[in-house]
């Protein structure tokens, strides 16, 4: 870290990346297996009868033989290990199974829905990160000032509001009173196709609502971390050298504060997903949220298992990416250690 040339130093920092990725992959396999076994065990403990769930209101007018026949067709009365091995076998052949609650292959449920949820979460995450870094750093720079106090008060207020409430309030103001945005749906109800501009127009409110509901946590964290690092020796030294305030704030203080933040973004991801489920409901978006609830209520193992596996994989990847980013950002961290 002392006298090495910049290009070599950079490659040196990520030198262990390949090893780390390989090691993480080896850990990921047992984690995913354990998750899926846990899923099946929980499902077995659930007393809900998937055939009755499938029949819906017709369950009350359907004879027991009729329901037993449907259960036999699905093989849901087989012993759990048999069901699990069958599922693993199909999975290895690339077949995620048949969703009993949606009446279509699990892969097509995911294909039709995961994209919208990922789009919602991805755009929101970008907005939240940018906004919280910028606003948090500014608030920390003028700690105790009007902007800082106003921002913190707003953050605490938003933190205490349920996300569906913010969503309904946003619809009431921006869709009903002002008429700027549509109240819900992915496209205009009478639209003939799915155009990007139409979808973008429909996503502004949901993204804004989800971003606002998730922002306080990130914002307060950035503000505190930057405030802390503004008192660090190297930041004081930079200031003493007469560097411009902007350079000190964004180049020195924020950069130091960024490190723990990267890891925490990874761990905060599941909460963002949870918020997305509620936002999808309020804005009637056809994402994964509603089907997940339906799958859980209907003991739809194949769909639940797939969603759980995908979510676990995303969290594992996010953690890995955070660690790699950490190594890239902080010269003291070495991956090959």
């Amino acid at each position, binding site marked *: 870290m002392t006298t090495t040339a910049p290009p070599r130093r950079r490659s040196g920092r990520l030198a262990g990346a390949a090893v780390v990725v390989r090691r993480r992959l080896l850990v990921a396999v047992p984690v995913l297996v354990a998750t899926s076994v846990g899923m099946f065990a929980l499902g077995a403990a659930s*007393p*809900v*009868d998937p055939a*009755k769930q*499938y*029949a819906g*209101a*017709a*369950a*009350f*007018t*359907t*004879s*027991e033989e*009729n329901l037993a*026949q*449907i259960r036999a*067709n*699905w093989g849901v009365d087989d012993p759990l290990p048999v069901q699990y091995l069958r599922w693993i076998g199909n999975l290895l052949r690339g077949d995620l199974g*048949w969703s009993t*609650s*949606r*009446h*279509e*292959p699990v892969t097509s449920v995911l294909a*039709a*829905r995961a994209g919208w949820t990922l789009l919602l979460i991805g755009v929101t995450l970008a907005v939240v990160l940018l906004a919280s870094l*910028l606003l948090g750093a*500014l608030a920390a*720079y*003028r700690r105790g000032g009007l902007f800082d106090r106003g921002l913190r008060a707003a953050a605490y207020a938003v933190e205490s509001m349920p996300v569906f409430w913010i969503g*309904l309030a946003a*619809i*009431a103001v921006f*869709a*009903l009173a002002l*008429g*700027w*945005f*549509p*109240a*819900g*749906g*992915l*496209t205009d*109800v*009478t639209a*003939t196709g799915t155009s990007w501009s139409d979808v973008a*127009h429909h996503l*502004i409110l949901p993204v804004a609502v989800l971003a606002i509901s998730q922002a306080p946590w990130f914002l307060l964290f950035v503000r505190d971390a930057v405030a802390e690092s503004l008192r660090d020796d190297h930041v004081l030294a930079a200031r003493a050298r007469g560097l*411009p*305030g*902007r350079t000190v*704030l964004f180049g020195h203080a924020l950069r130091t504060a960024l490190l723990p933040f990267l890891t925490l973004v990874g761990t905060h991801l599941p909460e963002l997903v949870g918020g997305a489920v509620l936002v999808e*409901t*309020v804005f*009637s*978006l*056809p994402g994964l949220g509603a*089907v997940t609830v339906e799958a859980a209520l209907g003991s739809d193992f194949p769909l639940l298992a797939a969603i759980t596996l995908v979510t676990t994989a995303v969290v594992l990847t996010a953690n890995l990416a955070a660690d790699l980013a950490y190594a890239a950002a902080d010269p003291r961290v070495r991956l090959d250690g």
Partner: protein
Amino acid sequence: MIRLRPTLRRLVVTTAAAGLLALAGCSTPEVPEDSAGGATLVVATAGESDTLNPVLNYGVDGASLIFDGLVARDAGNRLVPGLAAELPTVSPDGRTVTAKLRDGVLFHDGGELTASDVAFTYQAVLDPKVDSTLRSDLDMVESITAPDPATVVFRLRYPYAPFLQRLTLGVVPAKLLTGQDINKAEFNRKPVGTGPYRVESWTPGDRLVLTANERYFGGRPANDRVVVAFVEDDNVRAQRMRAGEFDAAELPPKLAAGFAPDGAYRVEQVPTADYRGVMLPMGNPVLADVAIRRALSLAVDRAAMVAGILGGSGDPAFGPVPPTSEFAEPSIAGKPTADPTAATALLDAAGWTPGPDGVRVKNGRPARFTLMYPASDTLRKDLALAVTADAKKVGIEVAPEGLTWDAIDPRMKSDALLMGYGTPYDPDFVTYKLYHSRFAGQGYFNPGSYRSPVADQALQEGRDQADPARRKAAYATFQKQIAADVPWLFLTYLRHSYVLKSSVQGVSPRVEAHEHGVANSLWWNIDTWTRS
């Protein structure tokens, strides 16, 4: 700090610019595409089907917009010919039903409808490999044959008077499904029928887009497109209705009432055959006494339940045959309000005397029972609490208990349960299985093991006799027997409420069943709706 100013200024300027851009983007005028005479109608519901295949339970009672059955129902729920040229004929022994098909009916893909399509549809329902819950309703069918391309013959195991009512099931094209696993067929999402609309696209969880079938045998629909928006949450649906997105939406009574004062909307309260009541099991030592059951029926204030819990959107219930049915027996209707005097007199006479804590006692046994309700159903919870309060006034203690169905199922033989059933089409449907002793203790059919030879015989006669007058007499006997035995404490019939834009014309509400979504809702005849 001075050095920070440029940053701040730049930030303010960029934010403002971005805001302006966003505003400009939103204020782009949106020209409705259907300005040429209301060509697209949009309706909203919470009831999305899992599939659009009639074999797998989509729109089995007709009015499915995409399919037609051999018969259909008019605004008064009377049977009229559908794909059949005239109502099918029944042989004198009641076991052979013959239908002649209309000429020249085409499926949406241009294929011609033949008798083999009809036979295929019913055979698919009866195939044990097919996951159809409809099989329970067609257990009287022995065989279906198509002797020639225009004739379908049903052979029944036993005479079944209301069989024609079962022929509303939509007919699917055999050509597109033969040799396929019907449970997993692509057809279930992209169906092809004969109905007034064909499916343009279906985005599950979002919307179903239907376009007019130019060659519909009943005449081309008056509108070009129908969009069914699926909005699960009631409040969200109400807000989007308010925002002007929908021409019609199904909404709970209390949310619908908010639209009534506004001249731009109209609220429809549609009667249903869907009743709520308390199943009183004979296996419970307290409820086994008919005096307790009759006293409960006198003690409950049905009018207060309709006004308070349903917001006026319901009717008092006194039996399992809805008052809108031609088979309803008017003499069984009691007082809609509570009659505690009569209830206490009845209990006194039966030997249930008030105990020290206000709860009546007979032979050392207190008048106390548990009333279960599905915990997630707030309507049933409210009704259970109302029953509890009313029963307390006459000295019967009810312990309401909210449970999940899997916890309820094993206890149905001995604990009371708030249930709901009902169909507007024929008194045999559901009712036979609910009150006939042959089904005692079989799952959700007659879980309280009610046994009455009089009711059994009346139900059987209603099923066997083809003569409408004799059927009416049989169901009158049945209803009187139920009113005397009180195996159920009938509380209310529900009404379905809808909000419509005032400009929508041609709406013709008819008595609805419990299930209402894409099919069988207020928009059962949307192909004749217009916008003024």
